[in-house]
């Protein structure tokens, strides 16, 4: 249904509701009917307390929108839990449960087992940030995947412990500044590499594991629909900028996210049963410096310090490596946010 037709339909219904006697068409009932006509389902409502430009809030809205209303959500402790549910308020239109930092995958396993025991078909989506997924909740996640629970696990990756005030996580990129990886006389930010979580997830040989970025909403929607249609464990890693943690202005959040993809630093790929089956191609790879220089967390890499140049080269090499191993280089125009058009299929399961 196109939007003009929808508008007409809504106006017609409103007109009818106003003119009809209230007992024959109660307004509430009418609104419920109208809601059905809304082209988008909203699982996460506006009015929550996320910061301006929060990538995680946007990603969570896109995920729940695409997954539809027959879903139960679990949530690890973190920003998403805090900014959506300050008691007695909640921004969720879906049944939602938060327990602890490290058990989102395990409580989801329990919810899914209960649904199975009751013969209910509702889909379970487990959510966590990178701290709750790469680090403290990793064991529970691995167990969930190994036991083949019918759950989509979504990791909103903003590359540090943002909720506690920007501490380094296993996902923090090499050389990034956080409050526990500050640059100084002896250090140039985080000493270690970003954990290659997606490969570890894929090594569980689950039906579907993919990465995505908030800069490409249609790609997220497509991947969520794909993941929830599969019976079994699926995983989605969504790169989600944190303006506060990355030291960027809120209004360039999406631009920065897109640069992470276009430089090759955050490869957007799909893996089925451990095999690479799809990538978002980069037609004109951008130098990593274009991405890094926008962010305060990499500010120390743009000084006269000889180590700064070395670390920039190090990061460029990591991006080049990603482009090579995932064969990200593509022809033609750069990826735009169009459904499917920006993904090269390499076989695998049929949609």
């Amino acid at each position, binding site marked *: 249904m196109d939007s003009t037709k929808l508008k007409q339909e809504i106006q017609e219904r409103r007109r009818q509701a106003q003119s009809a006697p209230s007992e024959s068409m109660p307004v509430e009932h009418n609104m419920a009917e109208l809601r059905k006509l809304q082209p988008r389902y909203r699982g996460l409502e506006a009015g929550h307390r996320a910061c301006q430009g929060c990538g995680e809030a946007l990603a969570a809205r896109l995920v729940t929108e695409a997954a539809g209303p027959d879903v*139960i959500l679990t949530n690890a402790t973190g920003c998403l839990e805090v900014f959506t549910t300050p008691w007695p308020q909640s921004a969720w239109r879906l*049944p939602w449960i938060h327990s602890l930092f490290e058990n989102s995958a395990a409580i989801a396993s329990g919810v899914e087992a209960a649904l199975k025991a009751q013969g209910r078909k509702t889909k379970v989506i487990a959510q966590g940030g990178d701290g709750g997924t790469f680090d403290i909740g990793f064991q529970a996640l691995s167990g969930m995947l190994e036991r083949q629970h019918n759950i989509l696990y979504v990791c909103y990756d903003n590359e540090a412990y943002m909720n506690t005030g920007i501490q380094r996580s296993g996902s923090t990129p090499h050389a990034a500044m956080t409050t526990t990886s500050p640059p100084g006389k002896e250090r140039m930010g985080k000493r270690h590499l970003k954990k290659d979580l997606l490969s570890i997830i894929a090594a569980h040989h689950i039906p579907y594991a993919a990465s995505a970025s908030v800069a490409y909403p249609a790609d997220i929607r497509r991947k969520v629909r794909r993941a929830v249609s599969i019976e079994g464990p699926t995983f989605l890693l969504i790169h989600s900028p944190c303006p506060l943690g990355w030291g960027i202005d809120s209004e360039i959040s999406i631009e920065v996210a897109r640069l992470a993809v276009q430089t090759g630093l955050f490869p957007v790929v799909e893996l089925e049963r451990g095999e690479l089956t799809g990538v978002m191609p980069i037609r004109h790879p951008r130098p990593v410096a274009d991405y890094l220089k926008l962010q305060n967390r990499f500010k120390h890499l743009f000084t006269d310090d000889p180590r700064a140049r070395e670390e920039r080269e190090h990061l460029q090499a990591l991006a080049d490596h990603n482009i090579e191993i995932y064969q990200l280089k593509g022809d033609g125009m750069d990826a735009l946010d169009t459904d499917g058009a920006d993904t090269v299929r390499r076989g695998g399961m049929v949609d």
Partner: protein
Amino acid sequence: MLHALEGSQAIAQAVALCRPGVVAAYPITPQTHIVENISKLVADGKLKCEFVSVESEFSAASVVLGASAAGSRSYTASSSQGILLMAEVLFDIAGMRLPVVMTCANRAISAPINIWNDHQDSMTVRDSGWIQLHCADNQEAIDTSIQAFRIAERTELPVMVCMDGFVLTHTLEVVDMPSAEQVDSYLPPFTFKNKLDPKHPLSLGTLVGPEYYTEARYSLHRALEKALPEIEAADADWAKICGRAAGGLLTVEGPENATTAVLAMGSVVSTLTESNEMLPGNKRVKIIKLRSFRPFPIEALQMACQGLKELIVLERAFSPGLGGILGTEVRAALAGMQKPPQVRNFTVGLGGRDIPMSTLSKLINAAKAQAPGGFAILDVEPERLPPEDR
């Protein structure tokens, strides 16, 4: 019907009679036989439930948390380090008011590592908000496990059934296993009004600030207090069905006119009761079997202690740097009495050290020498201590 069953086997069968929807557990000695027996019942099609073989006790507790919130009757079992690894989740299950039932096969905690029985594990999580019921023998463990589901579901509080590791879990005992009809007539199917359901979306486990946190915790405290009559009623109603009670909040045995009593929890009560019967009539003491450790039955305990001059609290745990835990709590609970008895406090039988029949006499004698407010570990062997601690 009477059967000779190992404690763990009996518990597995009793749990199966309660028709849980989801069971999740991780092996740990001495709980392992329970989860093994449940796995077998599932494999043989005798128990229709989702059995989730998790990768840790932490996930076992998390799985039953999620399953309970999604509206299924849920059960887990653990011991010792497993209980400690679960600790964070246990507090959360209680705070979220989820009616999970678990068996704690009581075992010592590390270090030094020791797989044998005492009560230090469940004691460590006494402030988690779980109901904790202790069993003196395997029949009580069966009956208490069945009652636990009813108590949990009526109070919306989780229940931990504590039974001594090895002493009960690995001991063959003739027990009366209730019939499915008896259990079904006692325990209605589980319905949970706050369950996760897309038709009525609720947010569970939200962030609560200083303006509501105190009230949420107070309500948990009140819920535990209000569980006291539920525990008594659950036992009384069960007795109507199978003609056998499991000990309500506490029970008192021994001569009416005795002015000394020994209070204990768990299987040691059976030893004490038997040794008491072998004492000369005028030397016999009262034996108070405390079944409900949480909620702590202050009023019932005060009633039980009317007329006593001396109350010896025997426990199988202690708080390093303080002394007895149970003893300290009993002293506090009796402080409101007009004429409270003198409370003597001893820990005994840590890490599986045997508690022989002779313990009762030794205890009565040692109590005479203990100063008011004192505490001692009764069976510490000085020659096994480093010289500076003798």
